[in-house]
């Protein structure tokens, strides 16, 4: 899985940075989608397309008279869904990497008589190795931890994360077994983490001198650019179709059976009634919707604060075990959410800290899960702020609190916003850890939707997902307006590529 997304991600990064392709901006915009899409939504859309009563399946069977099959449910479906869902993440990582390869390296290789293809193979590609490894690791971990898509599409094809889920919530209710499976999952991801380190070895991949790189990236060799462009186009088209399906699916009566357009699902989920007491939230989804918003809104600023404080500690202070500490903060990103979910249940189900089933556990898990992004963004911008800035402010008569508030904080604004947006969005779309931690009182949107899907209530699930996507799109856009022209996507690239 990691391999597929990495290759596809690389293809996209190449198209955007190394070709005369005209719709680069559109392609970049596609990368924001999966960040704001709950992971299993892709799975849902695939069912609408290729499922038993899916559009393509029906059309195909009418055309050729073939009996519709359930081929989608199982490995192929999960694979396709994950490819669609995680390729943009690899793309985000790799676009920074591809752009980061110093142009003069490639020019040097050209003047040394290497053909374009040879340059790509012997210089560009090896220099992208750390990025490729990161993208691979990310794809691998996301795929291992992915919970929604296997649940929706898996059929009899069980993956570790769903096994863990059923061990906890299923009839067996065996926390021990869940913990063992979580250990196995953890072992695999840490193994991948270790393998990545090994593969990179101790070779150096950074440009030796940063100065005077004024060259331009050469375009891809033609032999490479044609297939690359073709694949990218097909993928982009497919993604667009999938998202159209999601929207379309939310406004039809009953998919494949009754294709009349209706807003019924939105009605069920989000109906309002006005009476003398004011607005009555009568829709079925409001509860989880508000809970999600509330918890995301609480978790996001806390995540940002914890992340930035950690970043401050890591950049401005020295203390024993600093490296181990930094590694530890990154690790919580590498651990699959499923494992975190299980461990939180086990840890906080018993005194002294008994918070399972409360909103607190959700907030806490979000903070620790999403903190690394805040840390990375914080470190990136804080290491750019020279210490002399603090010092000059201090010598000008400000005390350290004033210095922090008037000098450091404004300069950190982009980092703060990145951390805020990211943790907010992740809190709204997270499923893998959340599903273990929700309770009747504190139900999250994503686990509510999964519940609908399990009851085959696709219309409602999709309508709800569409609403979530829309809400988050608004949030991201609003944040982007506040930050101004700095791109959130770019910063995420930086923060994620350092996993």
């Amino acid at each position, binding site marked *: 899985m990691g391999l597929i997304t990495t290759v596809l991600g690389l293809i996209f990064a190449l198209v955007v940075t190394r070709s005369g392709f005209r719709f680069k901006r559109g392609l970049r915009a596609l990368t924001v989608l999966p960040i704001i899409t709950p992971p299993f939504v892709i799975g849902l859309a695939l069912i609408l397309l290729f499922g038993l009563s899916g559009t393509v399946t029906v059309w195909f069977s009418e055309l050729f008279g073939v009996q519709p099959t359930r081929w989608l449910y199982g490995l192929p479906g999960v694979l396709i869904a994950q490819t669609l869902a995680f390729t943009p993440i690899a793309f985000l990582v790799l676009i920074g990497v591809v752009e980061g390869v110093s142009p003069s390296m490639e020019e040097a290789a050209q003047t040394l*008589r*290497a053909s374009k293809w*040879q340059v790509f193979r012997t210089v560009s590609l090896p220099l992208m190795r750390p990025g490729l490894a990161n993208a691979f690791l990310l794809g691998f971990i996301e795929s291992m931890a992915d919970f929604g898509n296997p649940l929706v599409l898996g059929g009899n094809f069980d993956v570790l994360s769903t096994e863990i889920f059923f061990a906890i919530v299923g009839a067996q209710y065996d926390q021990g077994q869940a913990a063992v499976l979580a250990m196995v999952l953890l072992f695999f991801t840490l193994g991948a983490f270790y393998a990545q380190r090994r593969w990179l070895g101790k070779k*150096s991949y950074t440009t*030796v001198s940063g*100065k005077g790189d004024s*060259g331009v990236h050469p375009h891809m060799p033609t032999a490479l650019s044609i297939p690359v462009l073709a694949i990218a186009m097909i993928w982009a088209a497919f993604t667009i179709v999938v998202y159209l399906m999601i929207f379309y699916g939310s406004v039809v009566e009953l998919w494949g059976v009754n294709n009349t357009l209706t807003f019924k699902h939105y009605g069920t989920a989000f109906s309002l009634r006005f009476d003398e007491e004011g607005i009555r939230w009568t829709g079925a989804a409001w509860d989880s919707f508000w809970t999600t918003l509330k918890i995301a809104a609480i978790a996001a600023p806390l995540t940002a604060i914890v992340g930035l404080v950690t970043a401050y500690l890591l950049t401005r202070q020295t203390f024993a075990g600093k490296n181990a500490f930094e590694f530890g903060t990154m690790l919580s990103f590498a651990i699959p959410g499923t494992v975190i979910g299980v461990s939180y249940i086990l840890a906080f189900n018993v005194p002294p800290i008994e918070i399972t089933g409360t909103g607190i556990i959700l907030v806490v898990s979000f903070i620790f899960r999403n903190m690394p992004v805040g840390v990375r963004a914080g470190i990136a911008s804080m290491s750019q702020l020279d210490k002399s800035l603090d010092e000059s402010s201090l010598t000008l008569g400000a005390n350290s609190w004033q210095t922090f508030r008037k000098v450091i904080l404004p300069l950190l604004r982009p980092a703060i916003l990145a951390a805020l947006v990211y943790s907010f969005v992740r809190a709204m779309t997270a499923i893998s850890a959340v599903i273990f931690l929700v309770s009747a009182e504190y139900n999250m949107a994503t686990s509510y939707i999964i519940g609908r899907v399990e009851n085959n209530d696709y219309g409602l699930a999709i309508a709800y997902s569409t609403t979530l996507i829309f809400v988050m799109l608004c949030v991201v856009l609003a944040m982007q307006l506040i930050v101004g022209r700095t791109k959130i996507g770019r910063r995420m690239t930086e923060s994620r590529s350092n996993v």
Partner: protein
Amino acid sequence: MSINAKAAPVSFRNVTKVYGKDVVAVDDINLEIKAGKLVTLLGPSGCGKTTTLRMIAGLEIATKGTIFIGDQDVTLLPATDRDVSMVFQSYALFPHMSVMENVSYGLGFSGFDKTETRDRAQDGLDLVGLKGFGDRLPSELSGGQQQRVAVARALVLEPQVLLFDEPLSNLDAKLRRQVREDIRDIQQNLGLTVVYVTHDQEEALAVSDEIVVMRNASIAQVGHPRELYDAPADRFVADFIGEANIIPCEITDVQGDVAHIRMGDLLHRLPARGLSQGPATIAVRPTRFKLDVSEGLSMNVSKATYVGSRMEYTLEASFGQVFVVSEDVDNPLAAGTDVTVGLDSVGPVLLPEH
């Protein structure tokens, strides 16, 4: 030494380079670079010197005009197919390859077999004094050593033309002098054609057979270092190569190729350079003034700075400020005093008007 030169001349005929729609980086230049010579492209940033170099390398393709290397028209030939190699400002050593692999890189694409590649790369490293460093990674070398690896990597291909893009700008001041001498030695010993880009006029004067001064996408003057320094074609060149005081004067009389000029009370004789009677300007180097003479221009010392080996003065004259350097550090002039200033008999030069 098994590395030989296949030095070839380079010639630009009416070459223009336009970026995008209307950014003219190089505007209709003609340039002849002779085989076996070191020619410097000198100019302020944005003057088109690097673009010119990159057009020789094949990293930029000329918009108009033709470029020859030797007898071959290379105008449309990409970098890969040109017999040219380049030392980059950032050195552009491949960080994932050892020094040996870096130096062998180009040889592998040039049809040499394995043993020959290794021998040649070894010779290249010997030549730049890095014997025994082959197994290191570039990141384990100092800046000066990295620079030499970059030179070796370009040299071993025995290119018709070797290009240097500001090769010294990432080195510290002390190392610069030595490295530029090393580059000049290698160039002369092997008889290479070298095109060298720099914005440092002292560097250009020190290493070049010929200097091409560029300004605003075109060539301001071409000449030997001495020629540029002593007979600048215009105000820009005079000021860019070494410092110059540009002073207005009056040509009172021209006899043959000698002009008599007057600046206030000061009379002087110097080469006429084809100018005739009337108002003109002269360029005077800071070292070409005589201080405290009996007859000359009266000026007031507004600043006096002791810099160890010499005194630097800023003098206030009726036509503006003059910057003067004096070797006499034992009897400095104090700020505020009046002084009578004359000109050296050799050195001051009339600037042709445009």
